[in-house]
């Protein structure tokens, strides 16, 4: 059994009511993306989204490792605000620390924030535990 732990990432949030800048802690984990023989130069923070069926990445991240985004199978994602997002599916390699696995990921020109979902990410782990009060997440594989 291997276990990796990531602290939540503090990000800024402007509270309109109090007019103050606060911190909001988000479960972001650094993931390196690889495609065929091309490995991303740096890890990119992805939101662990247990409510997402699939992983959804910005198209530009795929392009950075040489993926011809529009050559993938066209898929529609349905999200918050009842909006459809057009995506293109590709098989990629994801690296979380030293753990490496092949997964499907959907890339969209309409998505800015990379997020990893249950099928394509969570299913590659034995357990993913969110520690909300302590602001960290543990991934067991």
């Amino acid at each position, binding site marked *: 059994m291997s276990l990796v732990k990531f602290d939540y990432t503090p990000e800024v949030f402007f509270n309109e009511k109090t007019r103050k800048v606060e911190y909001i802690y988000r479960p972001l984990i650094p993931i390196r993306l690889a495609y065929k023989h091309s490995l991303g130069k740096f890890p*990119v923070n992805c939101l662990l989204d247990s409510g997402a069926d699939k992983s959804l990445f910005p198209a530009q991240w795929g392009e*950075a490792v040489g993926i011809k985004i529009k050559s993938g199978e066209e898929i529609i994602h349905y999200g918050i605000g009842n909006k459809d997002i057009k995506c293109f599916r590709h098989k990629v390699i994801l690296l979380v620390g030293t753990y490496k696995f092949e997964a499907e990921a959907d890339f969209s020109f309409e998505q800015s924030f990379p997020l990893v979902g249950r099928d394509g990410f969570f299913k590659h782990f034995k357990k993913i535990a969110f520690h909300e009060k302590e602001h960290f997440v543990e991934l067991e594989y």
Partner: protein
Amino acid sequence: MNKAYKKTLLSNQNNWIAVSSDKSKILASGKSIQEVEKKLGKLDIKDAVITFVPPANRYLSP
């Protein structure tokens, strides 16, 4: 997170930034992942994490 870090985050909403692996410093920023990678390359930085900065006045509900 110190004041300068917070200020840099606020000024980079909807941009991509590179953060040191200990999350203490913002090393580069840009409109795209590729732009940030290029800047890191010029600075000869090999250890960083790239992250998108969402708008600070919105909750994130993907």
